[in-house]
């Protein structure tokens, strides 16, 4: 029964007449576009790499749209895809899809986004240093924490328990505190 519901939910995600995503899903994608940049910022220091990564994420999101299960929140699903692609990219596992679809054609202006995260700012440099000192899984946790997700929501994206999430976030807080003390 559950399997049947799941299939039905996934079917709703696509227009039955064509294999393209429905208009409301495209609108959701547009509404949550910032997720892609913020995840890319968390995993890539280099601007060109960030551009490649956003492109990979967009293509993966597009390809996964027909499988979107409406029981999951769209933002949760999009974070999962973005973080999964970013970790694969970070671990050098993703297939290189450079220039498959030029990102500027999609109106996604990386340079403009970069200006918002200008690292001349001291606070952002602190944040950047903190992120750079974390491994790929802890980066996902800290990103979701910064995004204002609670432990349950983070657990939903990452796939670990909420208690585990809280413990890890506290450890990262302590690490940051220790780093300031040492400095």
């Amino acid at each position: 029964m559950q399997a049947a519901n799941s299939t039905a939910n996934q079917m709703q995600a696509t227009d039955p007449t064509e294999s393209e995503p429905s208009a409301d899903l495209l609108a959701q994608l547009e509404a949550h576009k910032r997720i892609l940049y913020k995840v890319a910022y968390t995993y890539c220091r280099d601007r060109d790499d960030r551009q490649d990564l956003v492109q990979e994420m967009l293509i993966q999101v597009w390809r996964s749209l027909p499988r979107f299960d409406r029981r999951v929140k769209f933002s949760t699903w999009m974070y999962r895809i973005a973080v999964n692609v970013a970790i694969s990219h970070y671990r050098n596992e993703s297939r290189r899809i450079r220039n498959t679809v030029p990102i500027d054609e999609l109106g996604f202006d990386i340079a403009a986004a970069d200006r918002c995260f200008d690292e001349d700012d001291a606070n952002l440099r602190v944040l950047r240093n903190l992120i750079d000192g974390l491994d790929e899984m802890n980066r996902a946790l800290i990103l979701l924490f910064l995004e204002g997700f609670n432990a349950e929501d983070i657990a939903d994206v990452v796939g670990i328990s909420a208690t585990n999430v809280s413990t890890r976030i506290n450890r990262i807080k302590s690490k940051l505190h220790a780093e300031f003390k040492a400095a």
Partner: protein
Amino acid sequence: MEMTLDQLKTEWAARDRLLQDSIRLHGRLLRESFVDKHRTRMERLAAGGNFELLFALPFLAFFGWFIARHIAQPEFLLPAVALQAWTLVFAVLGIQQRQKLQNLDYGQPVIELQRSVERLKIARLATFKWAFLTGQLLWWVPFVLVLFKGLFGVNLYTVSTFMPRFIACNILFGVAAIPCAIWASRRIGDRCGGSERFRKFTDGIAGRDIAAAREFLDRLARLERGETSD
């Protein structure tokens, strides 16, 4: 001044508000780009390309034909069957792994997807390693024997009295080369600062990449259990 994570969160939220106005991404442009302008590229990406099959088919046809013609000659049948089995096994494994990679659902929770990716990576690396190590044995003397007999009708066993010994020595050398290649790639990989591609190749043969992938799987398991990894 000490910054806390909660203060950084406020800073992050301020940047996020700026980002909202800076990034443009239009569903219409996405649709036009992915569906109309770059449809072929997207389809190619989705299909992944069955290069293994394209490579394997002519060889499978040739070895199949050869086996049928030399069924009663074990000295030719054996190398041809070994080559046929090698080609078939590694083509099927390659296609299966590519399909699994294509079918990965990136919308799964991070731990689940990363675990699937890493398991697939281990399978892919092991396939490459054993395809190379057994390939250097089969695609030299056995292949030349089958090729000369099949295409030119030349029986290399009888070309000279020295030939059977030469063939036997080559096969023994090929078998001995398997552990030697693993040992050498472990030694060379550590010391050779050469190209990234060569280092990746030696890592693949030495099994270092597999060890790294297993280490990541362990790290994921520890994360899931709530144990510290750092």
